[in-house]
């Protein structure tokens, strides 16, 4: 097995003492930052990017692997203990998790989340290791039109799947594509949308964009609406997982993994839909479904495993095709570009040490995460009590360091403020952030593929859709665009019976997921 051998070599890279240290640091920082309210995995990575500026790429990505899972788990802790999750992937976890915590079973909820994350992350990473070489074999046969089609699919998918308003989603995508266009056109060497400002000729640094939209935008938004009343943080105490908890958890962990990984791996992703699916599945299969809505452990174990498996699955399109499907993956792609690398099928050939070291570190990071979280859950919970002025001061403070250190330029600080204000208004008017960030980072790559496709076809527009693969993808895109409205029409004709997914908890969950869709991965 190709993947297994490469993976063993990856472990050889990752298991050196210094690289282990970076993995450990990544997990520790990722969890600590990710636990902080309002900071999700994408912002965690964006804020911690400057720490890796001077590292070798391999070490930097080993650290990212730790930050990735650490930030993810930190977000779940926050949502279980606070109930108002900052990212859509944790919305479902929060429902039953917070109810459990309120019943004095917070430790068990955190434990089933931690162990479920570990199992799902491990299986998911194994899936990544096995699937990546296969996809790469297929991907090397993909031509420019195929890539362009898949990228259009990614744009359409993140825009239509997330959030409740497609118009606002596409508006956000347009803003992202516009920002991505700023700079010198690589083919003709002409400046586009630079307003004659020399600093803009190289385009806007991805760190500035990510930190601006996520960190500064979020800080401004929260500051404008800061909760005056104190938050209801549930104490972490009470019994750990009982034998009964284990019995009720292990199947949801595995089912959640099975649901989450494929959803993450297709470039249409996000964790919102699979976590909801997992919740609905567990509710349907539970022996005592009446527990749901009162703190059912299955409702934490399943969605949480799904969330992590989908995060692992999301690395498949990122590493093999260079296509991010979540904000977190987009920021990772930006980090790759920062090192002058373009993830894609050739990355595994040109940088095998880095890619397999990264994958091996995901396993290691996952194990470290489990070891850290079971004993340290109460310490993380204490981080939730950090006074908000210090929390948001810290976010702006580190955002400024990150933006300044990227190019040692105050211009980037002003740009950061402008993009932060943009992020504020996007939150205010319900424009989701994720399409924008994907547009910024993926837009230029998509343009390059499109122009390459047309160069091959000697300018014939058919060069964009003259392969079977690209045609299939365009059909999928068309279905994504016209499918939901038609389904709604059909449903209305049947008398508007709704989705029929049963009583309120499920409905609330979906509504909540939509309400928080903007925050996905923030």
């Amino acid at each position, binding site marked *: 097995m190709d993947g297994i051998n490469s993976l063993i070599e990856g472990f050889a890279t990752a298991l050196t003492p210094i690289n282990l240290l970076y993995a450990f640091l990544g997990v520790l920082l990722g969890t600590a930052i990710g636990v902080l*309210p309002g900071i999700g995995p994408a912002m965690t990575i964006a804020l911690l990017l400057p720490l890796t500026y*001077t590292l070798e790429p391999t070490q930097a990505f080993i650290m990212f692997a730790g930050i990735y899972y650490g930030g993810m788990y930190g977000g779940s802790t926050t949502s279980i203990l*606070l109930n108002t*999750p900052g990212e859509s992937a944790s919305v479902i976890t929060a*429902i039953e998790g*917070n109810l459990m915590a309120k019943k004095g079973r917070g430790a068990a909820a955190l434990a089933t989340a931690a162990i479920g994350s570990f199992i799902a992350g491990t299986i998911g990473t194994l899936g990544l290791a096995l699937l990546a070489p296969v996809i790469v074999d297929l991907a090397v046969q993909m031509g420019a039109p195929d890539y362009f089609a898949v990228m259009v699919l990614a744009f359409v998918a993140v825009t239509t799947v997330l959030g*409740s*308003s497609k*118009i606002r989603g596409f508006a956000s995508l*347009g*803003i992202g*594509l*516009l920002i991505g266009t700023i700079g010198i056109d690589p*083919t*003709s060497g*002409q400046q*586009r949308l630079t307003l004659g400002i020399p600093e803009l000729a190289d385009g806007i640094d991805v760190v500035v964009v990510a930190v601006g939209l996520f960190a*500064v935008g*979020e800080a*401004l938004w*929260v500051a*404008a*609406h*800061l*909760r005056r*009343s104190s*938050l209801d943080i549930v104490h972490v105490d009470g019994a750990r997982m009982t034998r009964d908890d284990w019995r009720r958890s292990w199947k949801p962990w595995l089912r959640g993994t099975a649901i989450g990984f494929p959803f993450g791996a297709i470039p249409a992703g996000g964790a919102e839909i699979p976590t909801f699916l997992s919740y609905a599945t567990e509710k349907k299969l539970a022996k005592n479904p009446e527990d749901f809505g009162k703190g059912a452990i299955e409702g934490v174990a399943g969605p949480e495993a799904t969330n992590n498996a989908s995060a692992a699955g999301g690395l498949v399109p990122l590493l093999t095709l260079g296509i991010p499907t979540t904000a977190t993956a987009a920021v990772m792609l930006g980090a790759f570009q920062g090192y002058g690398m373009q993830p894609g099928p050739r990355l595994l050939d040109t940088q095998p040490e880095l890619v397999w070291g990264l994958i091996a570190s995901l396993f290691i990071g996952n194990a470290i995460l489990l070891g850290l979280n079971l004993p340290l859950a109460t310490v993380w919970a204490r981080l939730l009590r950090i006074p908000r*002025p*210090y929390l*948001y*001061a810290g976010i*702006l*403070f*580190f955002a*400024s*360091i990150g933006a*300044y*250190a990227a190019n040692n330029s*105050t211009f980037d*600080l*002003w740009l950061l*403020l402008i993009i932060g204000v943009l992020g*504020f208004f996007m*939150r*205010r*008017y*319900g*424009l989701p952030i994720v399409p924008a960030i994907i547009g910024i980072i993926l*837009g230029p790559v998509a343009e390059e593929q499109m*122009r390459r496709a*047309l160069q091959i076809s000697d*300018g014939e*527009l058919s060069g964009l859709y003259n392969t079977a693969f690209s045609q299939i993808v365009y059909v999928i895109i068309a279905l994504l665009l016209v499918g939901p409205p038609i389904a709604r029409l059909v449903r209305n004709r049947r008398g508007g019976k709704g989705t029929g997914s049963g009583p309120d908890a499920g409905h*609330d969950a979906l*509504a909540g997921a*939509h*309400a*928080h869709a*903007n*925050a996905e991965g923030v």
Partner: protein
Amino acid sequence: MTPANGSTGPAAPEVPPDRATGGVAGPAGPGGSDRLPDSTRDASAKKDYSEYGVAVLLLALGIWAIVDAVGLADASTARGPIGPKTVPIAVGLLLVTMAILLVIDVARGGRGEQEGGEDVDLSHGSDWRTIGLLAGAFAANALLIERVGWPLSGAILFFGTTYALGSRSYIRNVIISVIMSVGTWYLFYAGLGIKLPAGLLKGIL
């Protein structure tokens, strides 16, 4: 579990009553909550226009992209209809289209869904004083970082933010701010080899 915006209809068909009355059950304006649509009619009438502001911004960005693209020269090496202009024009058209659709959506009662979160309380409107103070602290750092150095400008940023967010333990905040800025300066200098400007404190640190 959904914060205050539970009743915010994402699209027109879900808020038909508003179309009839011309009123809005949108997110809360200052001094109101969206759970009490009747009491916020005045505030939300103003909201209408600010929703249109988003469309104006999209339109402006779209036109900018198209105008900028029209001024580009066609690349001599490119074949066929696709050149450096294509993507900016396509993006511009996308933005203009969305601006038009957004106007229609807002006119039919659609409202942007404000983002919730752990620390977000949507029952009151935006606190512009806090935002202004924050932006001021941020701008102070941008203006000062190369003149007086990060250890001072960063401390001003941190202290200014805590002040803006309502912390009034001045002495403690000054101490924390200075520890943060000097600490990060050393961390980045010694630990990561990134030289943040030392400014006035050059030679002392």
